[in-house]
């Protein structure tokens, strides 16, 4: 998938609570500026759905919340540096629309 200019459309899968909060069903599509990084994806997501600000990343530090994780192409990206370009095969797959970027609520607690 491509978007206008130096941006790509990225499919993002949200956990149920955040889908409810954003008022969406299923995947969402966000336009992300290249190069694709975690921060770029999340910035684009929050720009489209401001209600998600603070629910995925800490408002003050912008660090990933402890019980939220990020996956794509069966890779756990959670602890990768937020400004590092996504691995090339991941970026290729999600910009081509073959794979989504997954925001996952960690399995913790009850």
């Amino acid at each position, binding site marked *: 998938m491509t978007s206008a200019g130096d941006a790509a459309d990225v499919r993002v899968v949200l956990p149920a*609570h955040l889908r409810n*909060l954003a008022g969406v069903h299923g995947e969402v599509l966000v336009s992300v500026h290249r190069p694709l990084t975690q921060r770029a994806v999340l910035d684009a997501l929050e720009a489209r759905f401001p*209600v998600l600000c*603070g629910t995925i990343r800490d408002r*003050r530090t912008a660090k990933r919340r402890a019980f*939220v994780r990020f996956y794509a192409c069966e890779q756990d990206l959670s602890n990768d540096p937020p400004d590092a370009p996504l691995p090339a095969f991941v970026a290729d797959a999600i910009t081509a629309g073959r794979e989504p970027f997954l925001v996952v*609520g*960690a399995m*913790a607690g009850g």
Partner: protein
Amino acid sequence: MTQVRVLAGTRKGAFVLTSDGNRDKWSVSGPYFGGWEIYHLKGSPVNPDRIYASQNTGWFGQLIQRSDDGGLTWEPVGNDFSYAGGDPGTHLWYDDTPRPWEFKRIWHLEPSLTDPDTVYAGAEDAALFKSTDGAVSWTELTGLRTHPTGPSWAPGAGGLCPHTIILQEPRIYVAISAAGTLRSDDGGETWRVINRGLLSDGIPDPDAEAGHCVHHVEAHPAKPDTLFMQKHWDVMRSDDAGENWYEISGNLPTDFGFPIGVHPHEAETLYVVPITSDSLHYPPDGALRVYRSRVGGNEWEPLTSGLPQRDCYVNVYRDAMSIDTLDDTGIYFGTTGGQVYCSADSGDTWAPIVRDLPAVLSVEVQVLP
């Protein structure tokens, strides 16, 4: 006809319970925000259909929801509770080491008595925020957290939580577990600790300014300088706006507990729910009893009719009691077992409104014209 609306915050969502003035038949709606912890929700005294709710999970953090139609629909509003200043400073951690202040959750929301768009929020760790635009944006009232005693404040078991906000604008009272009670006479700009007379095991200094584990404080609207406190242990009273406190536990079977309530028409009538101890968070003898004093404390009577008197091991949290303003005054409380009880006769008899909600964190009642 008069309507009564009870707002119940629970571990897994919010519920709205409604009845007419007889308070014997109830309808239940919810859960709203299912799966989220709703620490507190409260309506504006000016516009009762304006309700604010604190929504939180360990996964996705803090949200504030606002309703303008009495809880039928909700809109997420502002959740930016950034502490003022670049370096927020420190408080004490459990091991007596300094720990940076860090926002965790909103325990209590207190709408203004005069403006439906103004609301105060008590934040763990120990900060007070104010919004004047219907909870869209928040500003920290830094005078509280930066009080000279602030670096010595340490969290209670539940966290360093400002759970009580009493508005007598411009006067504001705040109670924090485990710092104590503070009062501002200038709308929250400056604060002074008001803990003289509180005695707490574990604090060797009987004159300690801070460090007291206050569980809840209430004031009677007609006697604003008279305050009633349920402390970790001890039920306390002040008749001079918190300058001096004295104990009124009297003949209670135990003076540990969380909520305390004041009758709206009888300034000397109080309610507490004694809990066995700080390590046994359930009622003595497995019997759920509300205790009422009609003389301002010390002399208490158990209220048991309609409440389980055997095999009951629930707790009642600090914000989970509320009292309506009808002539036949209604008392309400919620339990960790998911029951919300109502007495429509000032506590003489009780009946459950609901029995099987998630653990109840907060109860607030509104009387609607």
